[in-house]
């Protein structure tokens, strides 16, 4: 076992892990941060997307020890301390961007990464950016709409389908 330390949502966290321990296992099983989901476990679905040093990564395809010293952000750190949803989360709620909710943590984290680099993405850019995030409920329309809305753009032109 090796000790790994990182900052998660602004809080220093550490634990003893094996070489093979995945970042997502460290977050979920050791730190109890179960908001990050494991969907496919094969880096296809994106339910496990978190940010490592500001970049979206699939936490099921990164070793915990690779995140030594990193700043990690997960879905648990997105809302304010009093539970007030951030703009992306609120838009997902407002525009029905989720149904079962399983993919939502990854969708929100990917959306946050997108909007950081591209504050006013077009509909096409959003769809392209979400290539690595699968949703089996919504058909994506309302997710795209929610992200457009969260970026402060008019979504009335996007048909409700």
């Amino acid at each position, binding site marked *: 076992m090796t000790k790994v330390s990182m900052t998660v949502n602004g809080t220093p966290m550490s634990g003893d892990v094996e070489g093979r321990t995945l970042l997502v296992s460290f977050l979920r099983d050791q730190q109890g941060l179960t908001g990050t989901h494991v969907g496919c476990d*094969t*880096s296809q679905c994106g339910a496990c997307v978190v940010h490592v040093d500001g*970049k979206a990564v699939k936490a099921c395809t990164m070793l915990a020890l690779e995140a*030594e010293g990193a700043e990690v952000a997960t879905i648990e750190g997105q809302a304010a301390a009093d539970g007030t949803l951030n703009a992306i989360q609120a838009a997902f709620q407002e525009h029905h961007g989720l149904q079962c909710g399983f993919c939502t943590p990854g969708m929100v984290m*990917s959306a946050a990464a997108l909007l950081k680099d591209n504050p006013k993405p077009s509909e096409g850019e959003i769809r392209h*950016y979400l290539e690595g995030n699968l949703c089996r409920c919504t058909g994506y329309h309302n997710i795209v709409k929610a992200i457009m809305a969260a970026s402060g753009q008019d979504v009335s032109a996007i048909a409700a389908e």
Partner: protein
Amino acid sequence: MYEFEFARPASVAEAVKALSEEDAQALGGGQTLIPTLKQRLAMPSTLVSLSGIDEMKGIHSEGGQLVIGGAMTHADVAEGAEAYPALAALAGQIGDPAVRNRGTLGGSIANNDPAACYPAAVLGSGATIVTSAREIAADDYFQGMFTTALEEGEIVTAVKFPQPEVANYQKFLQPASRFALVGVFVARFADGVRVAVTGASEEGVFRWGAAEAALATDFSADAISGLTVEADGMIGDIHGTKAYRAHLVGVMTKRAVAAAS
């Protein structure tokens, strides 16, 4: 995954030393290796991460070539290789954004997946692969599906890309895997044209010599209209037959030439 030790050296020399241990394995971004380990298809004693080695990072120009560190991620190259737009565009089409934030240039070409994008750029540019031990010309480096000139424990530390006059990469996407069903990289230099094809052949990335010769005299999509590649030797699977892939090689080459001209 089977158990393994984990090492994260800070220099190429330390990494080479760590890789001299029996059954030690280098870890680039892990976007192929970690899924492979999960399926227990590999059983390294030690994984030697290359992510903490600063001398394998960075993009700079040197003697008219663009030198990219082996540990640079696809996202780094998509953003930082503006001096070579066709290469930056290729890097920006690999996988998805989260995969591009981890996967590396060195890892991709060390693995040499027959459907990976980077081998087409490296071979199509006539690049030089810089390793922990030597420099290898791209024409000598790729030796068939998942096979390269790398020796045990040898690390790709950088790739030197000559910069062509014009170049373009066209990828026919396999939408589930996001790999290339067929991808063609075309580059025109003052002294000739190189055409490298990925995704299509059972031998991995290859140069399409007949197209290179035709394009050298007439760099236009029409110049290769009469040319075909043999279906024999192409990959045939549920995503596309051998004949379909052979056909796509011609189509994608024409598109790349048209986009580059």
